[in-house]
């Protein structure tokens, strides 16, 4: 089905002890979580010590992996075949809790209390979009540092751009280096005062404007928040940077997940280009929900012509319907092949693994094994 695209060698990748992190990225609704879970299960059943970090799994899939408690720690998945000596742990990211833990671990108890109680912190940690990406990176770094597993499989947050998690450390860095924060800190940090001098009268207008826009209370809360976080932010940034660097090493394999649809493949092309630009190691494209037919040599046109013949003879109505159904399937198969061929023409070196469409959703280990086997099978 994959045309001339090279086949993605899934099993060698999963078995290779040098592969330490697999990141599944892609746009929403293409089966990222299922792919991550299926790969993790397959690696575990081939003997590796695996942990899978999921962001937002479907309820029944989560339940099948024992992810009922949101306690933000990896739990062993029951029902995994451990004959090869592997095991599988799974966890679901709880972003607020991850953030709280960072605060508690890196600030003095008194300061931690002040931060946790600050209204800015509370909305930043629990409801503002973007925090999830920071926290996914943080958790990935933590899991890696724990060194309990030899393979970490990560699902990425369903953000407006699924590469937001890559941008998170840089954004955090630019914020910390930003002059705005120093102004807010009012010279508490080196350089702040110098800026005040340079800005002179302009600065007075500025704080006036800020107060006008935000209200004095907001500015005060924000300032308290920034001052309180100041000491620990540096550490957070260092770890996020380290995780970012880790993602660039050869021990990481990025998989771009897509479905054979125009929009999903366009997003996939964007991811592939972006990963290349960031020098992130791309392993290949996983194409989910690919339609196939056991009678690929019977074309849509021939099947429809046959159905018409039967209609005219007013005979074999069931066969006529079966032929129309097959014609429909073949049109879909051809359309998907055309879309993939277009992708491959633009990105000829990206290896592809495809997974045939299943009539129902995957919600148990058996279903994950089926997906894993399909991924590993040469296209």
């Amino acid at each position, binding site marked *: 089905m994959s045309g001339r695209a090279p086949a993605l060698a899934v099993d060698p990748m999963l078995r290779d002890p040098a592969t330490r992190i697999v990141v599944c990225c892609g746009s929403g609704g293409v089966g990222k979580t299922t792919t991550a879970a299926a790969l993790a299960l397959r690696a575990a059943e081939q003997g590796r010590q695996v942990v899978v970090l999921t962001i937002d799994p479907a309820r029944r899939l989560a339940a099948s992996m024992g992810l009922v408690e949101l306690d933000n720690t990896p739990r062993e998945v029951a029902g995994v075949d451990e004959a090869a000596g592997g095991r599988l742990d799974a966890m679901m990211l709880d972003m607020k809790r991850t953030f709280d833990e960072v605060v508690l671990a890196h600030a003095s108890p008194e300061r931690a209390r002040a931060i946790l109680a600050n209204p800015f912190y509370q909305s930043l940690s629990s*409801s503002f979009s973007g925090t999830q990406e920071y926290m996914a990176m943080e958790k990935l770094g933590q899991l890696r540092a724990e060194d309990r597993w030899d393979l970490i499989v990560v699902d990425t947050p369903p953000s407006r751009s699924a590469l937001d998690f890559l941008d998170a450390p840089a954004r955090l860095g630019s*914020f910390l280096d930003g002059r705005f924060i120093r102004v807010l800190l009012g010279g508490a940090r080196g350089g702040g005062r110098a800026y005040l001098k340079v800005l002179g009268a302009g600065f007075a207008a500025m704080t006036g404007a800020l107060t006008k826009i935000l209200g004095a209370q907001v500015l005060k809360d924000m300032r308290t928040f920034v001052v309180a976080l100041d000491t620990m932010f540096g550490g957070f940034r260092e770890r996020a940077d380290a995780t970012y660097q880790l993602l660039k090493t050869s021990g990481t394999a990025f998989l771009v997940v897509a479905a054979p649809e125009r929009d999903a493949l366009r997003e996939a092309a964007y991811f592939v280009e972006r990963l290349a630009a960031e020098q992130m190691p791309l392993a290949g494209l996983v194409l989910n929900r690919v339609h196939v037919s056991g009678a690929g040599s019977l074309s849509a046109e021939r099947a429809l012509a046959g159905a018409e013949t039967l209609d005219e003879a007013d005979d074999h109505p069931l066969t006529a319907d*079966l032929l129309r159904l097959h014609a429909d399937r073949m049109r879909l198969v051809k359309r998907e092949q055309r879309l993939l061929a277009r992708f491959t023409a633009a990105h000829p070196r990206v290896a592809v693994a495809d997974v045939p469409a299943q009539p129902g959703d995957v919600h148990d280990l058996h279903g994950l094994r089926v997906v894993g086997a399909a991924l590993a099978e040469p296209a």
Partner: protein
Amino acid sequence: MARRDPDWDGVRLHVVTGKGGTGKTTVAAGLALALAGDGSRVLLVEVEGRQGIAQLFDVPPLPYEERKVAVGPGGGEVYALAVDAEAALLEYLDMFYRLGRAGRGLRRLGAIDFATTIAPGMRDVLLTGKLYEAVRRKPGRGRRYDTVVLDAPPTGRIGRFLGVNAEVVGLARVGPIRSQAQSIMKLLESPQTAVHVVSLLEEMPVQETCDAVAELSRAGLAVGAVVVNTVREPLLRARELTAVRKGLVDRGEVAAGLKAAGVRSGEAVVDALLAEAAEHAERVALEKTQRKTLAALGRPMYQLPLLPDGIDLGALYLLAERLCQQGAA
């Protein structure tokens, strides 16, 4: 057939959400065209920076500016706007505080970055603020619209997106930001706003639709319609589906049929056709269950067909027509 009264008389702001991959941008565009049908002027807004509207209408990427992208079937107009948080903030500062120069100063300081990226909730405040401005635009402040359609963030983030102003009210106890946030909340919670949820007849989108409907209702937002996208008609008759499901199809009969049809075939082709039929029957059965779940939500339900050749401008008009026929406009 006489057209019945549209379901959303009095609604000025249509928010279209849905799980990622359900086609909410397409539905939002179709709805905008449908609403423009009778000569109205409609603004279609996107906020996720994906330029999905430009791609759908096959126009160059949209700048931060309202551009006409299509003419409705009855002479109405559809304008489109891709809202950018940074531009919205500068515009906001300029409009309310005449901060022309100071605005630039804020950018140099990194305050704009702070507002639009590091405090990402601020981003949603700005985006909903721009939306509010478009709906409540005063005479003399630019083109006015009868209706605004928002291609909103996906179901996973919609509650947070629309609820961000409640949070701001909690943070800012006084000041202009607080009153602005209160006005936006008032609009979003009024009968002038309807939040439509796009779904597919698949388990996860249906689950997310149910979750979103519950979340929106809890937040006091008016849930509009449930739009079932990419609906496929069963290609087998009911009794054929039953036969296929129960494995009662006579293989010899199918083989004979293929022969009569002039199709060269063997056991393998018969097997393949029956396998495809079995998958089809299983899917039809699953879809029936999912449809029941959606119907139980008790919201108006619109069905849009799967268009096998993909979505282009012609397809959008077709979807708009289907939405009109079902009472959406």
